């Protein structure tokens, strides 16, 4: 696909929030990613959609600075990514909370790691917990929370140090369908407040269509972007919208794109 998608809004300085250029990844002889290029504008919500094992998580980990590309470049606000960065927050597939820390202390972990003042950020952490509707569990231990609540805490942790870019690696895939829908709505509510740039990896077509401004469909290994679909549904989005014809038109288009490449 083209280097810069036509609808990518430029950031304040004219540089995109995230610029991926010709990124490739090889594991020995195995080609996992073949030349992916992508721009994400400031405040945009972009999903990478593809089946399991298509290399979309690998790409996200490269953006997070947790994996190395075999070629190409990734830049966040114009700065090349060479490792984990302060201005990114990551939500993983499992919540990975530390079981011996209270929910609040888990959320403050990035603050401690980055040598920032706990006192300064504690009110923010509590605000986040309130917005995620788990503030009554601030002092609870993770094992006392349900799966959905744990993942909410993980999202708060990813946002606590005010990153400009939120990277989410199939964050709701371990949750049941009903909780998953709820989490999508909650995530959008948080996003509406913070307007972070979000890159969201998922294998759920409906989830991608419901959440995103733009969905990039990834083909089977070696991964490339095979289709780009702008989701022009109005915001704020409600679960009821998933019944609408407009929503289902997007879903059908995404499904066709996936089937064309995986059928």
């Amino acid at each position, binding site marked *: 696909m083209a280097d810069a998608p036509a609808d990518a809004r430029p950031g304040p300085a004219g540089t995109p929030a995230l610029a991926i250029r010709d990124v490739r990844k090889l594991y020995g002889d195995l080609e996992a990613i073949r030349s992916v290029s992508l721009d994400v504008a400031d405040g945009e919500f972009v999903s990478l959609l593809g089946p399991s094992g298509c290399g979309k998580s690998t790409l996200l980990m490269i953006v997070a600075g947790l994996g190395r590309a075999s070629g190409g470049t990734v830049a966040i606000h114009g700065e090349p990514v060479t490792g984990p960065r302060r201005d990114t927050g990551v939500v993983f597939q499992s919540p990975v909370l*530390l079981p011996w820390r209270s929910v609040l202390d888990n959320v403050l972990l990035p603050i401690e790691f980055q040598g920032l003042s706990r006192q300064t950020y504690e009110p923010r952490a509590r605000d986040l917990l309130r917005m995620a509707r788990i503030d009554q569990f601030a002092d609870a231990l993770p094992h006392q929370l349900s799966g959905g609540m744990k993942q909410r805490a993980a999202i708060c942790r990813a946002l606590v140090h005010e990153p400009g870019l939120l990277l989410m690696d199939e964050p709701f895939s371990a949750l049941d369908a009903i909780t998953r829908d709820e989490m999508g709505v909650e995530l959008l509510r948080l996003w509406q407040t913070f307007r972070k740039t979000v890159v969201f990896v998922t294998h759920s077509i409906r989830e991608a269509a419901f959440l995103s401004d733009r969905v990039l469909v990834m083909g089977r290994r070696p991964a490339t972007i095979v289709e780009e679909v702008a989701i022009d549904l109005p915001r704020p989005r409600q679960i009821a919208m998933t019944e609408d014809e407009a929503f289902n038109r997007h879903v059908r288009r995404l499904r066709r794109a996936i089937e064309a490449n995986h059928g």
Partner: protein
Amino acid sequence: MAEPSSSRRAGSAGTAAVVWPVAVTVGLLAGWELIVRALGVRPIILPAPSEIVRVMIARHEVLLDNLWPSLTLTVLGFLLSVVGGVAVALLITYSRIFRLGFYPIIVVSQVVPKVSIAPLFIVWFGTGLVSNLMLAFLVAFFPMTINAVMGFGSTDGDIQKMARAFMGSPAQIFWKIRLPNAMPHIFAGMKISITLAIIGVIVSEFVASQEGIGYLIKLSSGLLDTPLMMAAITVLSLAGLALYGLIALAERRAVYWQPPADVGAGGG
């Protein structure tokens, strides 16, 4: 689910877990007492529980006088093994050379029955406290090390990835993640080590010593004073139980985040 203040104390299941072992113990002791009395077994062969208790009270001075040195050595040997075991485990975890070069040797050396080295220690360190302490340490050291190595190595990959993503330094990752994560394993090692430290001390007191419970057991055996020997064994067992209990208690406080696994339905 999701009840922050949910009690960890088990209800009727917990009560049953206490009542049954106590009832069976009392039953066994009563049976022992009855059989000894009914058959008129001589105390030199098998004293009745009541006789053992009588001796424990009557001769508490000699028992306690010999308990303290054994207890002191056990605790010292145990503490040395914890410090040494954790230190060596850190070397194995963080030094490639140590892991590749020494860890296999440490594992293989486990097959040597450590108490068989006791006479050698006497040759090296003489028949003093040093020999006894060294044996207690040596016996308790291995399980401590192995468990600590397992603990430090048990941080799961996702947690390590998360820690790197949020920019934890290696030192922060150690103090805030690896060490607390290793605590359950370290306590498991400590529970094994304390019982082994007792064995180490008693064996070394058998071999050569002028005091201690091991010495008292050997002495009373030589004097055919079976009631005293049984009293000494009982005191030793009670002391061992107390030490183990202290560690289990410390574990519950230190590893507060793990709902007790052995109690069925309780907890979150």
